[in-house]
């Protein structure tokens, strides 16, 4: 049985969008490790070598991160990560990546499953929430975050650093 072409196009669009968001999420976190004390503190608390995978769904786009002595690096794939946050569907992931709901709401709505130590997951979630506060406009973050954190650097600078990769 085949899915309709409309569904196929929509899924393709969502996957592309999620890839872009995952790119900025990683780059944003990397930049903020340098410029936001809270993210620096969170990531500094992770043991060197910790691996984290954030997957839009089982076979969808994913962000694979490894903790290194100078922060975090993105790697192409991690087979057995320490922490795995995997959305149950592309559509569930789209709700979060498009800023319609936050990670807390996504968890409440059973949109993703988690493998690994829950305490370590909480630290990763706090980093994602903080990064979202910089990447998304305030009108969106007010809706998706339970508390909008104070920015320690402007969002424009975060985007500039993220795009240039410096």
């Amino acid at each position: 049985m085949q899915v309709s072409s409309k569904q196929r196009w929509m899924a393709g669009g969502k996957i592309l969008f999620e890839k872009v968001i995952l790119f900025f999420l990683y780059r944003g976190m990397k930049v903020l490790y340098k410029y936001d004390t809270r993210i620096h503190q969170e990531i500094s608390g992770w043991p060197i070598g910790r691996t984290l995978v954030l997957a839009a769904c089982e076979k969808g786009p994913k962000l694979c991160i490894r903790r290194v002595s100078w922060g975090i690096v993105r790697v192409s794939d991690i087979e057995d990560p320490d922490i795995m946050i995997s959305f149950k569907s592309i559509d569930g992931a789209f709700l979060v990546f498009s800023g319609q709901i936050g990670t807390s709401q996504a968890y409440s709505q059973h949109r993703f499953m988690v493998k690994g130590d829950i305490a370590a997951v909480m630290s990763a979630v706090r980093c994602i929430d903080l990064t979202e506060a910089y990447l998304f406009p305030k009108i969106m973050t007010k809706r998706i975050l339970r508390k909008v954190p104070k920015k320690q650097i402007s969002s424009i600078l975060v985007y500039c650093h993220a795009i240039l990769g410096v």
Partner: protein
Amino acid sequence: MLPLYYEFQNSTKILSGKNALENITYELKGLGASKPILLSDKVLEKIGSLQKVIDAMVSTGMEPGVIFTDIPADSSVTVVNQIGEKYKEGGCDSIVAVGGGSVIDTAKGVEMLISQDVEDLMELQGCESMGRGKHVPFIAVPTTSGTGSEMTLVAVIKNIEKSVKMEFISNYLLPDAAVLDPRMTETLPPKTTASTGFDALCHAIEAFSCNQKNPLSDAYATAAIKLVVENLEDAVKDGKNRKARLAMANASTMAGAAFSNSMVGMVHAIGHALGGVCKVPHGDAMTILLPYCMLYNYKKKGDIYGELLLYLEGPEVYAGTPSEKRGEEAIKSVRRLERRLHKMSGLPMTLKEAHVDKKDFDAVARTALNDGAMLVNPAAVDYEDVIMILNQAYE
């Protein structure tokens, strides 16, 4: 109002009331089991509660294959592995757990070990990440009215060697049946009755207010609150009052079903940390923290507790209270119940009374922030907020 999306599962069959224990054999046979492993602890063995279950099972034609009672107060992976071996050696085909939270959590660990066929439970840590696996018939007989563990999809098991507390959240951890027999709780001393009963109340109130709440969990939560309010003091006054005991067992079970689907929030996050860092008994921590955390959420999120006044104080008080005052009155009502229980049983009301040292506040706050329960609390909570609540609750 319906949430945008919610999930609810409660597949556990409830056997509640007179001679419930005598139906365990029938349930096991129905589940295709004939040789259960019976799990409990030394205290329950000593006071005769375990014998009541054995009598009920043997007299109805089911003899346990193995009886294991060396379960400590905190379930650990070593004990789970030890039981797993006994289960296989004894050729068992099902589990009957008789006890409080730690016995039932240990049983869930054994169930995972057998059904998932893994070497190390660590592989299964996480939330909704495991499949059903092989079905192992599992019956829980709670002996306290508080944890609600017989109805929850959560298990917490310590790995002492690696000094970590492993958390497992999966719908496949739910027992097939929960047996609520008033004979199982009548020996609980008044203070433990009050403390565990307050834990049940806390489960219900947090289930009603946390972000994962839904119409079905609300129905269980409000029914549980009503039962606690009507029966907890009677059960504390007279432990032999079977009507009150059974009502409290039902309240705990209903609150368990509610929070298993709607989760618990900051009261439990801070309470777990107080237990881990300062060894405060769970029920005592819940009693002390609940009003302060309710007040915190009320100030941040507005009137999320107003409707609860109906179940806490009844229709007369609810109708006579202006709608904007109901949330505040609900918090006061919880505080009044706490004071009455304190007078009746010596239940601690402050962290000072629970022998908490202020120098541990920093460690408690840091641990609490890493608890998964913080994610579903209605209001965001940061380090300073936890410290503020701990200071308020100190004396």
